[in-house]
């Protein structure tokens, strides 16, 4: 499907370049009418709220008219960027985000490749179902499971002790150096199955003729994986990567908030937690908005850069 889609768009390209005239608009008026509700939806729920960004430049107090707010310029941005812990918070966010991204992509693609090789449908379905079920658990439950398994009498320490790898239980959650890894691993456990679905779908659309041709040439299973399956899902991978880059400042909130504690705060505090503590928890909605603007600007910039790079490399693009 992927292949045919690419071909199709190549054929259609000159058509879209045609000048938009009244006649064309009239010809396609049904399409335009149909897009009205969607446009209204986007304007109402995506563009109108941008008005709220003004809060970042005020000392916003709820239940007061717009005209009654005091304007303070860049005060809240200054507080955000000048705070000593901000760099640390930014570091944690980026680190955990990158770890999650790398782990998330590699594990999902590997699992998808492996699943794709399984010939027995029942077995394949079972593995797939089991691996994606944790996706439906909320983080509060997952962190509970993680905290219990990592406790000094939890399963992880039990296994390590039985294997004589460690002499006494490790306090996993009180050591900062383990924290990022724990977060990354919990993400993988929770999301890996779910993330494979889209790759499996992409794999299903690869033309079987390609595999047959490879068979003719005497390609082994590994060869076929590397030279047929992987290139076949490359466009999907790249699109997903571009979209993921846009979310780089969203390392999550619940995991760090629920698993973090005083001993690991230097590694666990993310931008979202910082904003909760100094913004929302203090009724300082302006600071929260300022942080939101910062995140959006970074996201959009990164998204455009990634898109540009993909374009240069002649790959599939988002925009």
């Amino acid at each position, binding site marked *: 499907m992927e292949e045919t889609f690419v071909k199709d768009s190549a054929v259609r390209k000159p058509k879209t370049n045609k000048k938009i005239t009244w006649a064309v608009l009239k010809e396609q*008026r049904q399409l335009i*009418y*149909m897009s*009205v*509700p969607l446009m*209204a*939806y986007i304007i*109402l729920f995506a563009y109108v709220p941008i008005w709220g960004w003004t809060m970042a430049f005020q*000392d916003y*107090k*709820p*239940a007061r008219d717009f005209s009654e707010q005091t304007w303070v310029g860049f005060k809240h941005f200054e507080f955000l960027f000048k705070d000593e812990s901000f760099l640390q918070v930014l570091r944690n966010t980026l680190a955990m985000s990158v770890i999650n991204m790398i782990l998330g992509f590699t594990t999902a693609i590997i699992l998808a490749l492996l699943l794709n090789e399984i010939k027995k449908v029942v077995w394949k379905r079972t593995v797939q179902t089991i691996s994606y079920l944790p996706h439906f658990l909320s983080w509060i439950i997952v962190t509970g499971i993680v*905290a219990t398994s990592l*406790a*000094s009498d939890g399963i992880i320490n039990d296994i390590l002790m039985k294997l004589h790898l460690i002499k006494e239980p490790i*306090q996993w*959650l*009180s050591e900062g150096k383990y924290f990022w890894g724990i977060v990354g691993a919990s993400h993988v456990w929770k999301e890996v199955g779910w993330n494979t679905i889209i790759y499996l779908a992409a794999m299903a659309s690869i033309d079987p003729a390609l595999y047959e041709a490879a068979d003719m040439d005497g390609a082994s299973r590994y060869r076929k994986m590397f030279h047929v399956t992987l290139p076949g899902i490359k466009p999907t991978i790249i699109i997903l990567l571009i979209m993921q880059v846009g979310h780089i400042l969203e390392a999550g909130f619940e995991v760090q908030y629920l698993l973090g*504690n*005083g*001993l690991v*705060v*230097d590694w666990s505090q993310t931008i979202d937690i910082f904003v909760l*503590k*100094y913004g*929302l*928890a*203090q*009724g*300082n*909605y302006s600071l929260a908005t300022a942080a939101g603007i910062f995140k959006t600007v970074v996201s959009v910039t990164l998204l455009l850069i990634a898109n540009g790079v993909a374009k240069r490399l002649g790959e599939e693009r988002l925009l």
Partner: protein
Amino acid sequence: MGGKNKSVLRFSMMLLLSLGLVLSACSGGNNQGAAKNDNNGQAAGDNVANGVEPFEISVFIGQPDQQPTPDNKIYKLIREKTGASFKFEFLAGDIDQKLGVMIAGGDYPDMMTANQKLTAAGAFIPLEDLIEEHAPNLKKHYEKYWNMMKDPNDGHIYNLPNYGVTNADVTSSWYSGPAFWIQKDVLAEAGYPEVKTLDQYFDLIKQYKEKYPTIDGTPTIGFEILNYDWKNWGLFNAPQHLIGHPNDGGVVVKDGKAEIFADKDYAKRYYQKLNEMNALGIIDKEAFTQNFDQYMAKISSGAVLGMFDQHWNFQSAEDALITQKKDERTYVGLPLVFDEGIRDHYKDRPALNLNNGFGITVNASEEQAIRIIKLLDTLIQEDWQKILSWGIEGEDYIVKDGRFMKTQEQRDQFTDATWKLANKADSFHGQAPKMEGLFSDGNATDAAAQPEEMVAALREYDKNFLAQYGFNSYVDFFSPAPENDIAYPAWSVDLVDGSEAKIVNTKQNELSTKFLPKAILAKPEEFDSVWDEYVSEIRKLNIKAYEDRINEVLQWRRDTWSVK
């Protein structure tokens, strides 16, 4: 021609449809409002016949609780006699988040429990004129406290404090405040010694733990510390008590001036002791990574020998121990100090519970506000107070020679949560203005403070335990509370959201959360360097802004409250 008409029709239909979609999304709020009104109307239809005009009050309670049963007998009585019925909404999840959403939408019920965020957002209406005009009983009830109830920021009264208005020195048998708690069996094992100092306390725990490394199969935990989310006093608050000061939160008030104690030498002395105890394996290894549920689970298992906490905080875990018939694993609160010469000041006189209790919101109409204040005025009268606190005579308590008492069955019912949902109006009464002390006939307003009940309610184990010490109740372990400083307690000072004082306070707590566990878990020889780093980090903050704000309010209280 006909074709064109058709397409116009089609077009307008489509437009209409999309418009409808958009509009229905917008008007959701209105519909809801209308639905609510309908509901009110229905409730109003109930008992016009009685001569009282029925009305419904929507109430938000800022803590998790359960809905009373629809036929709850007390609420039914209130409805019959006054016409008022309540529609409760209880907190689910995080209070700050919930209020944030409510404030952003301006969507308040008629009556809400107090919160500084709400007051700051202008959610409450001033009550002083309403009370003067419509509520003579309430006015009388709060007379002595009138000035204290005023908001330091603008001088209006927004909330009716639910506790702290007392007419007699009440000696409840139940101490709810902070203390160093120790398992009764630890004291029994050591032959019921008198424990005054921190060192004696830890010696007892050490000996007991050596003798009994496990309790019912679970490894014994010597000392437990809870520092989770806002429940941080288990780690933060002990030093002020050890030098003989009452609970002022994050500061010690000395000669009328408040100063933080986190970086002082006596704080260091306490945490150094914890550090030594940790090296001996007395302190729970997981103390600083556990959440509240894990903490409660450990206490309920009976394996925890001691902790510093407020009684109400771990009460349900202790109840679980009682249900398991492990009386010897329940706790005694000890008012520990550093040295024998210091007089303990853990137990304090009840202060007015500021920033608590009900307020009426701007969403309540003027009529509704008057109705609510009149209702509260009715309910503060003695006959109603007896019903709300003791229940119905003959059903929930008995009267013998003018004294209120309970049968064992009635006593058991009062600890049964399911029974209470149908027979007590606790979610309302807990937040409403109430009499505390004695009724005019000499009975205590609270069953737990009625001397006859105090003795009768003791279990065999406790009777024997107290006899060993020659005490009447567990409160006798504490020194009697001296008169409060007029501005006490400092912990109820509103730091004002978003102000520098509040930000400094947040940062200081963050530092303590980070460094204190580190210091306690450090190797004993490294303790000093961690402590020095902690102190230098604290000194970098603008602590003065925080102390100034507290002192400013304390001064304001002295100026305004002294006039009675």
